Structure formats: C-alpha cells, structure tokens
C-alpha cells in the first residue's frame, strides 16, 4: 500500500497539486475508529450491556440444557449397552491417577531427602570411625587379656574399619 500511495502521491503532486487521497481516507478512518471505539467502550461498561450479555447467555443455557441432558442420557445408555466405559468413568480414573501422581512425587521427594541425608552422614561416619578404632586399640592394649588376643582383636578392628569406609563410598 505504501508503494501505491507513493505512486498516487507523485501523480497527484505532478498533475493537479492535490494531497494524497489515500492518506486522507486513512486519517478519516482512524478518527472514525477512535470515536467508535470510545462509544463502544462506554457501552460495554454499562449495566445494560451486562444485563443483555447475561440474558443471551441465560437463554442459550436454558434452551440447550434439555438437549444436552437428553444427549448425555442417550450416550450413557448406548455405552452401557455396548459394555463400554463412560466419560464419568474416565474422569474418575483420571482423578485417581492425578492423586497417585501426587503421592509418587511425595515419595520421590522423601527418597531424595533420605539420599541427601545419607550422603551427608557418610563422610562423618568415616571420620568418626578412625578415633573409635584408635580408642579401641588403646583399650585392648590395656586389658587383662593375653597380648596375642589383644593384637588379633586390634587387627580385626583395623580390617573392619577400611571395609566400612568402602561400603560408605560405594553408596
């Protein structure tokens, strides 16, 4: 349209010196649209429009309600005859699925929490195990049991401690 306007404008200027007719039309159109928009804006914001709107909707719903009910009953009857599930059956299933999804989400969140806690506890367990092993070693050394048994016990404790560490690392 802009190229058309330019063409018309050039012709207009060269021949009879008038302004662009299309531009004038556009301006008139825009002014008309603005005033129409203002009038319509005030109209829709009135109680009369709200009442008319409500009346139309009410009429539609009232008129269509019997047809809707009849159609639903007929469909329900047909589905029962065919031994097929109805819309209500599917809706009920969908609601239960949504509830199950929510429970699963909660279970997943709790498992993630447990995993996080376990991961945080594991390094502490490793660090605590070393002083425990050392205290057990010193306790066994000072006991009245024969030295050989104490050494054997200390060695077994040392063997157990690295094994625990490996398990925790594997988690």
């Amino acid at each position, binding site marked *: 349209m802009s190229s058309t306007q330019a063409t018309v404008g050039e012709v207009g200027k060269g021949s009879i010196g008038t302004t662009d007719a299309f531009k004038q039309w556009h301006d008139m159109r825009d002014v008309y*649209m603005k005033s129409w928009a203002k009038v319509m804006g005030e109209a829709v914001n009135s109680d009369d429009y709200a009442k008319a709107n409500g009346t139309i909707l009410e009429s539609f719903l009232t008129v269509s309600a019997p047809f809707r009910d009849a159609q639903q009953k007929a469909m329900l009857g047909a589905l029962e005859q065919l031994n097929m599930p109805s819309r209500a059956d599917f809706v009920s299933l969908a609601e239960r699925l949504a509830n199950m999804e929510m429970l699963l989400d909660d279970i997943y969140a709790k498992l993630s929490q447990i995993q996080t806690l376990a991961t945080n506890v594991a390094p502490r367990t490793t660090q605590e195990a070393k002083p425990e092993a050392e205290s057990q070693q010193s306790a066994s050394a000072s006991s009245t049991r024969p030295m050989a048994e104490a050494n054997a016990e200390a060695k077994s404790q040392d063997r157990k401690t690295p094994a625990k560490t490996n398990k925790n690392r594997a988690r």
Partner: protein
Amino acid sequence: MACDPYSVTQFAAMQDKLQNVSGVLATHPTDATQFTAMQEKLQTLNKVLTTKAPIAQSPKELIWTLNKAKLYRYIPVVAKEKMHPVPLLLVFALMNRPYILDLRPGHSFVEFMVNQGYDVYLLDWGLPGIEDKNLKFDDYTLDYMPRAIRKLKEVSGASEFSLLGWCIGAILSTIYASMRPDDGLRNLILLTAPLDFSKKELITFGRWTDERYFDLDKVLAAFGNMPGEMIDYGAKALKPVENYICNYLRLWDNLDNPQVVQAWHAMNTWVTDGVSLAGGAFRQLIDDLYRNDRLMQGTMMIRGERVNLSHLRAQLLTVIAEQDHIVPSCQSETVIAKVGSTDKTEMRIPGGHIGVMAGSGASKHTWPQIDGWLAPRSA
C-alpha cells in the same frame, strides 16, 4: 479469521487470480508492479492469519510434572559463578499459555532475565480437562506450587527463591506467599495483580459477572470448566472495536513492515491459544473475589485456613500498568498496605495489561526496572 477456512480459501483464490492477471499485465510494467505488491501483501496476510509464529524459543528443560502442570528450567547462559544465587520462578495466569513471557527471540522477558544471570524457572499450568473441573485455588497454591517449588530448590540447590506472578498468577502467588511464608520465599513480584475488588464501578468484569446477570452455577453445570473461547470473548469485548477491527486494520496498514508483522503474528498466536479455566478456580475467582472481595477483606478461606495478607513477609514489588483496562490500577494499589513485608515497592509503568511485559516498550520500561529491583535482593 485465523480459524476460518472460508477466508483461507478466498485468499488462495485471490492469489491465483492475481497471478493470472500479472501474467497478462506483463506488458504494462507499472500496473504489474502494483499488482505484485498487492499479491505479496495478500501472501503475507494469508501466512500470518493461517499459521502459528515460532514462539517460546528460549532453550529449556522439563524438570517436573504433576497432572497437567509442568515446571521448566531455562538453560543458563551465564557462567555459574556470575549467576544470581536466588532462582526465579515465573507463574502466569491459569487461562492463557505462559509463553507470553518468552514470546520471541529478542522480545522475551525470559531471555532477558537469563542473560542477566538469573536461574529462571517457569510453571506451566497446562490444559485442564473435564477431570480437573474441581481444581480450586486451594489445590494450585497448596498442592501444585509447593511441590514445584520443592523441585526447584532441589534442582537449583538454593533454599530461597524469588516468585513472579502475573495476573491470576499474582493471585495464586499472593495466596501462597501468605499461607506458606516460611517456605523460603525471599522476593515476590506481582504484575498487574487483580487483588482488590472493592471498587466495582471501575471493574468491567465485575459488572458482567454480577449475581443479577451471570448465573455461575448454570455456566459451570453446562461446561464443567470455563471455556477458553468465552474468556477470550470477555477479554476482547472490553475494547471491541480495538480488538475485533483496529487490530486487523493495523496489520493491513503494516503488511510491508516485517517487524510489525512479526510482532503481530507472535501476539496473535498467543491470543488465539486460549486455555479453559478449571471450574472450581473460576467459581472462586467470581464468587470469592469479583463478587465479595474476600482476599482484601481477610475472609478468604483456603482449605479451611484464612488467608492473612499480613503473614506475607517476602520483599515485595508490585508493578502496575497505567493503561490496563483488564485490571485497573485500583486493583493492585492496596496490597502494599496489607502485607507484612518491610521492604515493599510499587512501580507504575506505562502500558496495558499484556503490553507492559510483552509490548514493544517492555524491554526499555519494564524489564530493566524489574531487574534493577530484583538483582540486589538476589545476592
């Protein structure tokens, strides 16, 4: 017009005729040029009205779903050490698609915030079916949002987060923030929030849904959910001439301007992609809010618990669009006085309900202001 196959057929037939005519007029170059220009315009018009624009292009990953709701995380583009540690969750309205926040490259709030170093998440409520007709604000605010936020915290590793709610999303965010103030919400941004319904003479939707004119029970009994087409009609009927006529005239006048055409195409794609509103939520919206203003009165009950706005303690920014005819400014002004937050700011920005965030001026007037407020509060 986008859904009218008869118009599509008419345009296609007109194009064929123009092609034949342009062949015949090949001996008259000036007239042929004019017809070619017209032909190109009609082709552009046909394309814009019959196809969908490429929108929601920012890269994202789906990290959580529940029923129809989905939580997306946008892929960060800034190095991790330069990112804001507090993630940002975007919550839009229930009855429109949320990709208005990510409309098209170069004109996307999501893209802007991701570039500013925010860890951005978007909660998409999805398309409710008839099985969701009983979903209420209670479910959205106390079931869906806390679970989405729990996942957000798990993925981001943050214990605190910012929440941005727009339109009905702002209602849900306000209710959530008031009922769960200790969930880690640090910053709350409310965009064009319809919270105060006391000045009924200024709220056109309130007039239309008045008890005298609008039988809520009958509508929901007929449809289950509030149909998206009816909501779309309601939004457009507020300014019928602008939405049903001037909108298309503006497109016609600018068919040879690719920037305007692209913007129009993207916005029209979003406008025509409406969503139904779950029946329970619609009932609460009309009865509790539009008719009885229960939220501001302090009598709104969510799952047996009263919503007390004074319990809302997050740092608050409320953004008001000065030319908003869907949510007049009176609906967003009074929340500041009701909340228990100590850090609260009201920002007035020129623009309409959607234009304030998705219009051509949003990247200059709105987004930098939001970033300017949020950045120091996200450290």
